[in-house]
């Protein structure tokens, strides 16, 4: 058995590296589905509403406990703030999803160029 040719080994190593980087680039991550996005937005919005309303209700209850009858002032106030927080959530989720879609698109474009 003769010693392996170093040039051939180096060449093989180079080709393997190339193949691996190409395969890593072409591992496709599917963009989130339409219904997935819709469901994400809904839960983000509703969750903030629930937390906002709950917080307002809790503050009212606490004040009522100490003899200040503020109900439903804080409930209404925090419900409105909850809506704002929900919209903030949805906007943040939209940025994340946009970034993810852009990532998938760019990796698709890379894979397309190599072909």
């Amino acid at each position: 058995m003769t010693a392996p040719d170093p040039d051939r080994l180096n060449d093989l190593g180079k080709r393997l590296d190339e193949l691996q980087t190409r395969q890593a680039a072409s591992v496709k991550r599917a963009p989130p589905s339409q219904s997935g996005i819709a469901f994400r937005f809904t839960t983000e919005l509703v969750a903030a509403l629930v937390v906002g309303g709950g917080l307002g209700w809790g503050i009212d209850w606490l004040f009522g406990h100490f003899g200040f009858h503020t109900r439903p002032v804080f409930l209404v106030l925090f419900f409105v703030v909850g809506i704002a927080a929900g919209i903030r959530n949805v906007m943040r989720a939209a940025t994340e999803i946009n970034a993810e879609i852009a990532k998938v698109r760019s990796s698709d474009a890379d894979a397309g160029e190599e072909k």
Partner: protein
Amino acid sequence: MALNPMHQFSIKPLVTEPLFAISGHPIYFTNQALLMVIVVLATSLFLVLAVKPNRLVPTRGQSMAEMSYEFVANMIHSATGEDGLKFFPFVFTLFMFVLCCNFFGMVPGSFTVTSQIAVTLALACLVMLVVILTGFAKHGIRFFMLFVPKAPIYILPLLIVIEVISFCSRPISLSVRLFANMLAGHTLLAVFAGFVVSLGAAGGVLSVLSIAPMALIVGIMLLELLVAFLQAYVFAILTCIYLNEALHLHDHH
């Protein structure tokens, strides 16, 4: 009774004697607890046995274990960067637990642990606890800067309240998404299964027609497998995103 599509989600104690009691409330060993024990044992056993041969050319099992490792490691790396990788054990455990609970729930006759809001909310609260502790450990009191966006000073009080509510809504949206997806999918399956039974019992031509919902169930089952994976993925990636915010505050903006 058997045709009630919500019947599959009822929690029943398997042993009539309660395990122990917390301030008078008896705690039973339920079908849900059994499934969780099975999931944890099966996952741990699979991962330990799969990487045992430790071959250069992996066996099928080893390849699956390595794939799940690389999948989660890549996810953490792309979402949080290098220093997020120390949370790998946490995120990997979460991902595998949710994934396997979802998959074990797909076995007919078993129980879907993740269709219980108590379970998903507990998991989400655990995530938030880790996020908060990480934030305080890394930044100390500066962690509160997470709630202070860049804005003119006169509008800040309102914005801080909004950001706090937005932060507090995360465990809810995280848990409700997983719970609602699993609940909806399994209810749909049970409803169509009910159609098969009632059409089959109707007799005559209608019995033959029961093939149609049966075929639909097969399709929905495939869709549910996809949803089971996707929801575990979403749960894990959102955990990474929240961890990233706690680690880097507003640096990435």
